[in-house]
Each structure stands twice: as structure tokens, then as C-alpha cells.
């Protein structure tokens, strides 16, 4: 039995140690906002925060997350009080198909936590998530808007 802390709540999971954290979050805990994309930590659709840092949960064994603080898109901010990145996402109508957006938002939120006024280079280096719809200009604009540097 593994003990996970997801969005501030404890969860006891009867899963193998090497199950990807993404599977545990989606299929066992039941939080489906985090998406499966490539399965090889390349696209970032599965991004969650581990102790505040953005990580790719599809390639992270669940046992490696024990004792750490896991935050998913559902726990980023209260529904009635969205994170500034989420508010900017809505304001600028960032997503097209929307599949990658929870990972994009988690990566952006972590960036702004570390660099509240990011430069273009800061954004380019931190935002390695892939968007098949090619919404990169709006993603960057939303991050700048959330940071107040637009």
C-alpha cells in the first residue's frame, strides 16, 4: 500500500511501485484532468507538480512520489478562484482542441512561481510542452498576461 498526497489529500493506493504516477492519478485516484499524451515524457500533457516543480507523470514511478506533495490541475486553484494562468487562458481563448492545456497550464504556473516576470527565453525554456494545434503564440501571450508583462 502506497500513501500519496494529492492536492493536499492523503490517498492509500494498492498499486505496484512501478506504476506510472499518471495511471495512479487518473485510474485509481480518479482525477482525470491530467492527460496521457506520448507516454515517454516528451509532450508534457501529463505534467503535474511534485513539490512545486513540473514533472512528467507518465514516466514517473508512483513510488517515487511517496512523501512528496503532488498537485494536479484539479488542485492548482479553487474553481471559483482560478489561478492567474487559468484566468488568462480563458481571457485569451488559448486552447483549440484543449487536450494539452492542463499540462501547459501546470508548466506555466510552475514557471511563474519561480519567475514571476519571465522573459521570452524563460518561457521558451520552461514551456517544452507540445501543442498539436500550434497554439504556441496564444500560450506565450497568456503567460505574459498572467505575469503582467504582456
Amino acid at each position, binding site marked *: 500500500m502506497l500513501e500519496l498526497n494529492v492536492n493536499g489529500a492523503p490517498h492509500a493506493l494498492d498499486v505496484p511501485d512501478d506504476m506510472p504516477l499518471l495511471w495512479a492519478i487518473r485510474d485509481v485516484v480518479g482525477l482525470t484532468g491530467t492527460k496521457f499524451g506520448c507516454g*515517454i*515524457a*516528451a509532450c508534457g500533457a501529463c505534467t503535474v507538480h*511534485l*513539490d*512545486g*516543480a*513540473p*514533472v*512528467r507523470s507518465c*514516466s*514517473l*514511478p508512483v513510488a*517515487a512520489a511517496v512523501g*512528496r506533495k503532488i498537485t494536479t490541475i484539479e488542485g492548482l486553484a479553487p474553481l471559483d478562484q482560478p489561478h492567474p494562468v487559468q484566468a488568462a487562458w480563458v481571457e485569451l481563448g488559448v486552447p483549440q482542441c484543449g487536450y494539452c492545456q492542463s499540462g501547459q497550464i501546470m508548466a506555466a504556473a510552475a514557471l511563474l512561481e*519561480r519567475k514571476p516576470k519571465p*522573459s521570452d*527565453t*524563460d518561457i*521558451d*525554456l520552461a514551456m517544452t510542452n507540445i501543442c498539436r494545434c500550434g497554439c504556441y503564440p496564444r500560450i506565450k501571450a497568456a503567460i505574459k498576461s498572467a505575469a503582467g508583462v504582456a
Partner: protein
Amino acid sequence: MFVRSLVVTASFIGCISAFVAGPLAAQSSGPYTAAQAAAGATIYAAQCSSCHGAKLEGGAGPQLAGSDFIAKWTGQTADDIHYVVSTQMPQTAPGSLKPDEALALVAYILQQNKYPAGDAPLTAAKLTSIKIVKQ
């Protein structure tokens, strides 16, 4: 008279030596030690090379030494590299590197990007002062 000339000449040579040695010493005083980079190379081979390539040339993960790396990271600091290394790597166990291991890996990346070694090890306090620029 001869002795006085000798003293003056020696003092002059001493001043010249100090003038020459000063800048040269500063140039060789890199931000990490060779031993630290060697330790980083060992960790890299075990935990990073499968994604980033045996020579940091990139693969499934991005290049960590060379022109693409420098172009991408120019203007950032070693602290930005250290943040990624210490909190997001390796992707199968992010945050698992010990503090001295993460610093050793950053030292190795600096070394492979032609930053010179020095007499004192890389420390967390130094990271923000090390700008990423072509060496």
C-alpha cells in the same frame, strides 16, 4: 650601488610578475573544480546519458553541450540549469539527486561547455552569478 640596483630591478620584476600573474590567475579561476566535474561525469553516465547522449549531444532529451545548448540558454544562469537538474531530473525520479550530486552535474555541464575549472567547488551560492555564454 650594485645591491641597490639589484633590489630595484627585483622589485620591478616583482611588480611586473604580479601584474601579469593577477589577470592570468583570475582567468583560470573557474566556478567548479575538475574533481567535481569528474564526479558529475560519473553521475551523468549512469543517470543522464541514456536520454541526453554519451557526449551531451542530445537524444530523447535536449543537447546539454554545444552550440544549440548555448544558443538556447544564453542569458540564463547556472541556477536555471540547476533548478531543472535538481527538481525535474532524472525524469523517472525527479528530485532524487542529492544536493552535491546536482551541483556536480551542473559542474560537468559547465565543463563540457568549455567553462574553465578552478580551485573552489561550485556551490549553490555561486549559481546565479554564472551566466551562460559561449566560452
